[in-house]
């Protein structure tokens, strides 16, 4: 159930939707962007001092905050020599007139799981380096992201936030934990020295919307409202595909390959933009 906003939003959105269609038909976008242009990207890392890694990302007016935390945990029986990675996200009720407090909607669960797969399947975090004692004790890594303002393209923004937090974040040194396991206060890792999070990839998710049979990247909230189809594709640093999710609508067979090509180009572009913004060296 979506809330209705009596004041003006719904009307405004409807009017905007009409405009969007009109503009797209004229090969324009309401905010002046080209079809394959992303909005301005701003990244601030280390924004949550209590977290081991964190980032605040603005992609146009979409705002996401990501925090990375660690706990001690027991590995899963079928992967005794790997740490645990959990990614969860919520669209906060601050984010738009249609966002709701309460248990996550199916849309929110989908978003969480697509972001999770983008990180997990790329094997960005080397989970073998999170082991304290194989089969017994590992680091459990929580990645939480929250959408504070939703102006569309939440997934791309969230993945940018997560990779930024991981690339600049730290974790408790498992070697130290191993050696001092007895002395550490129970489930309190604050005294443990930290090392960088061991990353080995740099995945980028790109969402492409189909409006009036044309592809646009980085859709706004209003553009999402009128899109005929929407798909997210995540690429690894080696230009492999590591996650796809057709979120809405359908695509012709050839269109699938079109969006794959667009997303590959865009993933390289955005990855470089992040490197710049975080001050990381290139490849």
């Amino acid at each position: 159930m979506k809330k209705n906003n009596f004041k003006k939003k719904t009307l405004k959105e409807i009017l905007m939707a009409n405009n969007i269609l009109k503009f797209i038909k004229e090969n324009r976008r309401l905010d002046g962007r080209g079809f394959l242009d992303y909005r301005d990207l701003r990244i601030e890392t280390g924004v949550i001092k209590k977290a081991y890694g964190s980032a605040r990302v603005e992609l146009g007016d979409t705002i996401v905050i990501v925090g990375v935390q660690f706990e001690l945990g027991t590995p899963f029986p079928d992967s005794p020599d790997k740490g645990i990675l959990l990614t969860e996200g919520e669209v906060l009720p601050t984010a738009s007139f249609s966002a709701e407090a309460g248990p996550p909607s199916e849309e929110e669960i989908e978003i969480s799981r697509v972001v999770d797969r983008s990180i997990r399947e790329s094997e960005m975090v080397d989970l073998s380096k999170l082991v304290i004692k194989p089969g017994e004790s590992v680091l459990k890594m929580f990645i939480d992201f929250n959408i504070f303002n939703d102006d569309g393209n939440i997934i791309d923004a969230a993945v940018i936030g997560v990779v930024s937090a991981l690339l600049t974040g730290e974790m408790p040194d498992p070697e130290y934990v191993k050696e001092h396991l007895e002395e550490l206060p129970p489930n309190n890792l604050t005294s443990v020295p930290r090392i960088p999070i061991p990353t080995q990839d740099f995945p980028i998710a790109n969402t492409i919307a189909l409006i009036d049979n044309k592809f646009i990247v980085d859709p706004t909230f209003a553009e999402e409202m009128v899109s005929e189809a929407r798909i997210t594709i995540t690429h690894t640093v080696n230009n492999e595909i590591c996650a796809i999710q057709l979120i809405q609508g359908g695509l012709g067979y050839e269109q699938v390959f079109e969006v794959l090509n667009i997303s590959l180009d865009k993933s390289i572009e955005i990855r470089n933009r992040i490197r710049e913004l975080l001050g990381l060296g290139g490849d």
Partner: protein
Amino acid sequence: MSSKKGKKKSSDEEKKEEFIRIDGRKPDEMRPYKIRAHILRNADGSAEIRLGGNWIIAAVYGPKEHFPKFEISQDKAILNCRYHMTPYSTTERKSPKPSRREIELSKVIKNALEQAVVLEEFPEMSIDVYMEVAQAEGSTRVASVTAAAVALADAGIPMRDLVVGCSAGKVNGHIILDVGEEEDKEGEADLPIAIMPNLRKVVLLQMDGKLTHEEFKEAFDLALKGAMELYEEQVRALTSILKDMEVIEEGVKDEKE
């Protein structure tokens, strides 16, 4: 694309000949399958699919009045979808409470079916589609959507096309058709798709693991091929039911009146 595909496949086929899969299949071989329509007495439409060890039962109720009223959609029917695994469908007992995975799959299956069902014919109503996995052995989501489409057709609900799903994947460096459970766990990638076969539209598309663009093309084409094969089985199941239909309906009348 089809010419490229042709070239690709012929070269790949050599490789494939050598690769024998964990269950003895060739790379481009489906598991045995069987679809039966109209298997539940109470549902407005129903179907069952067996695909290897997968066993999924789908039922459709509706179109019918939607409750509560304030959720009603003025211009079309609401499609509710539930993909659900029974506790005994997996080796380790599954809690009957829907997991986050089941909620996500219900959502992507709903999107797939919404492309095909002519929802505009039933404003203010709802149509419920339930898929129950009695046994799971890899690629349940595409088998489920395949059964659900047959159940919708069995319910006499107007559709633009059927929806049929199939998966492809990558195991030990080989692109394979119709990913089994072990292959999903041990393999390098899983690509479930569902299509509207006559409208040539992809309506469900997900991917896990890692594939190059080249490998994706190969896997995608293979999954399309598998889906077209299953589509014939859908049609067969529906045709055989359509033939029996009047006989059965009469039988019901006789029995119940």
